[in-house]
């Protein structure tokens, strides 16, 4: 078993800690072990990239950290809160107050404009920033009254990021944020995520199967077959604009 704890940045407080995390999916007679005995700590302000092939368990891990799914066994803590012991209602509150999600396919509400998609979050958030500020941060002010269908894929993903950060989340969880985007647009989106990470100090966890993105992370965690295969620290983070793939 490889464990990522040792490699964590020692200075900042721990945001997430996972211990002996397992997840088994049952599909008919088949049992799929998506996660096996994962140990992990993530620190405040850290930019973590989870790297792995399709089926390596990275989405499952992210969904569990984000309170979208529950593990079959093991423990996950968010700060002092034990997520694995939380009720459905507690998980909902947790997502609402602490987590910003960015999905591969954006998952915007098609019947709401850019501003309204953000308002969906500010309506229920505790201490959100202004909708316009969030839109400005992703550079979409001119398109803020457009509907999702009127935006390009990259723009939609930037809306999704704005929607994720408008609540001032503690963590930003991104599942293949560039997966559906072309090279140039993808880099633009990654720049926005990096900027948020630096400017707001939001912990960012980004899933990708694109190894080239690893260069912009503080730490890269390699997953395979449901286990953490290795962990790399980047001594020198590079800017997304310098990434090449």
């Amino acid at each position: 078993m490889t464990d990522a704890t040792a490699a964590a940045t020692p200075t900042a407080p721990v945001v997430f800690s996972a211990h002996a995390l397992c997840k088994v999916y049952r599909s008919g007679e088949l049992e799929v072990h998506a996660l096996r005995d994962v140990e992990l700590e993530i620190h405040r302000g850290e930019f973590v990239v989870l790297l792995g092939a399709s089926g390596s368990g990275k989405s499952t891990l992210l969904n569990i950290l984000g309170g979208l799914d529950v593990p079959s066994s093991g423990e996950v803590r968010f700060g002092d809160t034990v997520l694995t012991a939380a009720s459905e209602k507690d998980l909902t509150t947790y997502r609402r107050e602490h987590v910003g999600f960015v999905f591969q396919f954006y998952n915007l509400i098609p019947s709401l404009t850019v501003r309204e998609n953000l308002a969906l979050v500010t309506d229920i958030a505790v201490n959100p920033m202004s909708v316009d500020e969030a839109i400005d941060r992703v550079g979409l002010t001119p398109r803020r009254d457009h509907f999702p269908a009127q935006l390009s894929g990259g723009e939609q993903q930037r809306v999704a990021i704005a929607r994720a950060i408008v609540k001032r989340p503690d963590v930003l969880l991104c599942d293949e944020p560039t997966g559906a985007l072309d090279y140039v647009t993808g880099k633009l989106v990654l720049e926005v995520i990096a900027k948020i990470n630096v400017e707001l100090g939001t912990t960012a966890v980004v899933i990708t199967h694109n190894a080239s993105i690893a260069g912009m992370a503080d730490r890269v965690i390699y997953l395979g077959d449901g286990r953490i295969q290795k962990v790399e620290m980047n001594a020198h983070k590079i800017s997304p604009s310098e990434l090449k793939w």
Partner: protein
Amino acid sequence: MTALDRKLLRDLRLMWSQVLTIALVVASGVGGFITSLSAVDSLALARERFYASGHFADVFASVKRAPNSLAATLLTLPGVADVQTTIEQVVRIELPGVLDPVLGQLIGVDARVPARMNLVTLRNGRLLDAGAEQAIPALVSAGFADARGLRPGARLSALINGKRRTLQVTGIALSPEFIFAGMQGAPDLRGFGVFWVPRDALAAAYDMDGAFNRLAIKLAPGASERAVLDALSAQLTRYGSREAHGRKEQTSHAILDSEIKQQRVLGTLLPLIFLGVAAFLLNVVVSRLVATQREQIAALKALGYPNVTIGVHYLKLVLVIVIFGSILGVGLGNVLGRQFLHLYAESFQFPSFQYTMAPWLLLVSISITLVTAALGTLNAILATVRLAPAEAMRPQAPGHYRRTLIERLGITRIPPALRMILRNMERRPLRTALSIGGVAASVSIVVMGNFFSDAIDYVVDAQFNVGLRSDVVLWMPEAAADSARHELARLPGVTMVESGRDVAVRFINGHLSQRGAIQGLAQHAQLRRIVDIDKHVVNWLDDDGLVMTDRLAAKLGLKVGQSVRVEVLEGAQRTVAVPLAAVVREMMGLNAYMERRALNQLLQEGDLSTQFALAIERGREPELLLASKQLPRVIGAFSKATVLRNMQEVTARNIRIMSTVLTLFATVIAVGVVYNNARISLAERTWELASLRVLGFTRAEVSGLLLGEMAIGIALALPLGMLMGFWMVQLVSQLVASDQFLFPAVIQPSTYAWSALVVLSAAAASALVVRRRIDKLDMVAALKTRE
């Protein structure tokens, strides 16, 4: 406004065609319910009010002639609170320029003694006063006055005791005794009028000074009607009592009562079935609608929206639709209910007809729809919110498909497209069953709505074409020698005469008894025939046995071969025993028949007749009617054409209008269901269909998959729906059946055809919409949004 509410409004606007059709389904259910029940409620209320304000009597009796002093004696009978006597006579009325036979019921009222029962309400004109020289002043019943255009000042003549007298109309009046005015239960506004005239004039004409022939009684609170009737009969026998009866057998009350009862059954049952079907469909449609929003629900959950908020959001969506539909339905019910009431107002005369919509109607109809819609929504939402959001956001796992039953049975040469359709239908049997059931239900209510038209056509045909084949029936006030037949045969245009003898009787079997009449018909009747519900003619009157409507025999607990005691209520009153020879399943009335000569023998009377049925050469009826007016002994003439026209204009028309309204509602429901089924199927399978397009399937092939499933569903739903319709019609006709009336459960092929046409047209229109949407499928976008 919160962003979530804004999403709600946008979604509603986006789905406008579905919102509209679902709302119309709700409106039809609620509208049908409110229309019929509010109209019949208002009718019942108007009756209650008029009975109270007009002091409608409880018991009625007729005698041949009794002294006025008898009233004081009757007042002492236990249970009798008040007695009121009148003189009444049925006479022939002649209106200038009118050939149709018209009968008038003259009622003598004493202007000096205010009436205490069956008060006459003056609608317009003046009360009775001393009329002009030689003319008798008269108040005319409003229904007749309106039908004949009579106003105060009009003059008409009446054949009073053989003498032609002039009646001068002073006013138009209404009475609780004649809310419904007509002879023999037929709504005959043109052919029957009630005339209130000075009692003195009538007494003088019929030699009834100091006497009466009709009385009304008010019962004391808590008195037994049966006991009073018995006591009354004992007192009245020697005065030639013809009948004493309670309200139940009073013509106007009985007709009104059966109309209200029948309408209440129809008005509750049909709309409840409608509302039930609408609610069921709403449930199906709504749950599928919500299910298609699975990913949006997941996204909302990921953003931290709790289940309750999401549930409320979708409930709001559905409630907006249902409330919109309910408002539409209530408005529609209000408008149509008033129209229905107008129809009633043509057959039933009330001083005021106020439309009321009872709050419970709104409460019941709206809550039924709201609750079922909410249940459908919650059901669908629960299935989605129960999932972890991560799971809900993923496309649904591929279902467990397997070879279909047909394939497993060894038929493997099925084209791939059909195979896909069949597997898809078989994989989700409940959903398939529900959507087929929904379409079938809408087919069935279209059948049921239209059935009433079919039934009334059938009744008219059976009664007037098969049964009564004469053109005119003439009748006498009292039995007369049958030889009059020869005289009538010589009247202009007459081709055949058939005589009949009617006698009022009471049938008694043990403790069961029933007032009625025996109709003496010709042995092999050609003109007045007995017809059963299957339109079979019964033409085998036994020599000395009775043939009875099966319901009458059942009421008396009689079996064929048993004897029944017959108490003759007119002439030389006697009691005889007659065997029951046969029963016949007739549609209308509680009738008893005998061969005329056998009946005369039974009564120990000569060869007598009370009426003559005439067949007339085509086009010569007016001539005959004119000639019949010269026969002083003929009291009335019953022209089939006139009665048929009255029936078509009132009863049949009312039923047809109701049937049309129900059919329209049913049609709207059917269209709503088929359209929504198609739209939702499309929404559920957009991704799959787009994928097939990517693989190289043509638009036609892809449309074929979806529309093929729809076609198979409808092909199964049509016969199923027709069968359901047939069952519902059987049920309805059983529930509506009364003593007096058996509603034939007949459905014309055209009704089935119409129901199929409605559903097929809705399907074709929906298919066009779906096809256009499939043509515009964005393959790339559809694939992008899924893994």
